[in-house]
């Protein structure tokens, strides 16, 4: 998988996360009892959509803000480690 990881991408992703967090407080539906699609209270519908948008946002984060060097950093020490002793705890 190729990821376009850039400083600008990371900034945009984290700005979007903050914006989404602000949109969580939907005071405009606070006392609204309307039913969407005939059964779903509108406040619940809004927050279900919020969850889907959050998933999309995290997909963007994975693509544009992934810490690409971390894997390498985690593994570069491996050959220096002593072999682990066998046996359960």
């Amino acid at each position, binding site marked *: 998988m190729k990821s376009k990881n850039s400083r600008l*991408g990371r900034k945009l992703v984290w700005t979007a996360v903050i914006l989404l967090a602000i949109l969580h407080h939907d005071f405009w539906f606070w006392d609204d009892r309307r039913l969407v699609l005939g059964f779903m209270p509108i406040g619940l519908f809004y927050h279900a959509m919020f969850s889907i948008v959050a998933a999309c946002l995290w997909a963007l984060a994975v693509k544009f803000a992934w810490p690409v060097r971390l894997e390498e950093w985690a593994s570069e020490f491996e050959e220096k480690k002593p072999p682990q002793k066998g046996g359960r705890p």
Partner: protein
Amino acid sequence: MIAAIDAAQMPLLVIVGYLGLLLVLGVWSSRFSRGTSADYFVVSRSIGPFLLLMSIFGTTMTGFALVGSTGKAYTSGIGVYGLMASWSGLIHSAVFFLIGIKLWAVGKRYGYVTQCEYFRERFESPSLGYLLFPILVLLVIPYLLVGVIAAGKFLQPTTAGAFPELFPHAVKALSGGIPPWLGSLAICLVVLFYVFFGGMRGAVWANAFQTIIFMGTGIIAFWMISTKLGGLAEASRIVAESQTAAPRLAREGSIGHLQFLSYCFIPLSVGMFPHLFQHWLTARSAKSFRLTVIAHPVFIMIVWVPCILIGIWAAGNLGPGANANAVLGRMVGQLVHSPILTGLVGAGVLAAIMSSLDSQFMCIGTMFTNDIVIRRFGNDRFSDKQKILMARGFILLIVAITYALSIYLKDTAHVFDLGVWCFSGFASLFPIAFAAVYWKRTTRAGAISSLVVTTLVWSALFYRDILLKKPGMDDELLIGGMMPVAFIFGASVLTLVVVSLLTQPPSTKTIEKFFDTHPHPEPADGVATK
């Protein structure tokens, strides 16, 4: 053959069959063990994206998510989704992304299997590990309680009518059902069995299996209940036309603005759950986290939306005054008239509960062995067999304490409120994890002070809200309209920052050990990298 079996006992038989399957899974998973401690504790860091997603999600969703959310929606309405589920979708994934991957990398690089090992070295303090261990155990106990109480409370109405003479009850909907003391005990024993046999591999496999079961049966239960109520629209119409239930369709009068806002702190708890830390370390690579980060919010939605709807429908159908912990069980028991389906749904709910209990049991044993026994007496003092026995003995002790508390609190503590308290404690420790990963200036004294202050403030407020609560007192404790976690979290951050700035910074050696201090060229905007 089915006709020969009493229909009232069929749900119980299905549940017993499911528990039997888990026992087989535990024994089977133990056959794949590589015989090393790394395999027993972190599955040799070999778990790929799908199993990681299922095991982390299964661990995160517990009795709190199914039994607790339905009960809370019954009493407080649809706002419960916004309080926990949508915040969690955003914040859990953020924590996996910002903290989980980093801690996985540190764990892989230095071979850690518990949080205490990491914090002890990151803050250059052996005593921090000894201090953190009992605090983590103290906070895990309410989390275990959530599962143990939820299991007992759910089993009773689901198996109602199975043994009317053996287990009579004044409430008809509960009469003849497995009583909570027995249901909770049975669930604890089953989880103990497969954890003891299969170690972390057993827990991961069981979690993945149970996550599939509880998501699948949840959808079936939702469909069955809505059909019995006359369809989705009819079920909600009944609520809208009920004077007492209609307010559940909105938040006005049920949830305050500051309360709603301050719930954002609660999901930060995943950054300090010791059992989740252990799951992170099982990942094969950092890339294994990608699917978890993306799919977690949608998985939460798939589980929580039906539960919230069932909760508000229950308000229109059961009327006020039902025990919140028993609402889901009663809706399933009264509306899903197929005994086999009732049993399957029951197995699904128990799956959600057990998929958290197993990881929690496992992490308690792991911490005790690694952070206390080996740390105190050295790796060679005891044989592997003795270490296993000690770990299992400690798990048994904690489970026994939890079980006794569950008997004492089962009629007063709401599963949802208890869960929120547990999460509040872990969330208030989150600043220490975040600072350990991102703030080089954090000091040993800062971390220890923050730990102590958090524990004291949490304990005082928990004691007041849960242990002093009398039956019938249903209101959550709010301070100035906000959740107590906001204040505990604030005290934690303030102490951490002030004390760290006033004390000597950590050594350069430690900073170089835990931070990638070598400069790396930034890829230019839009440049594709591996």
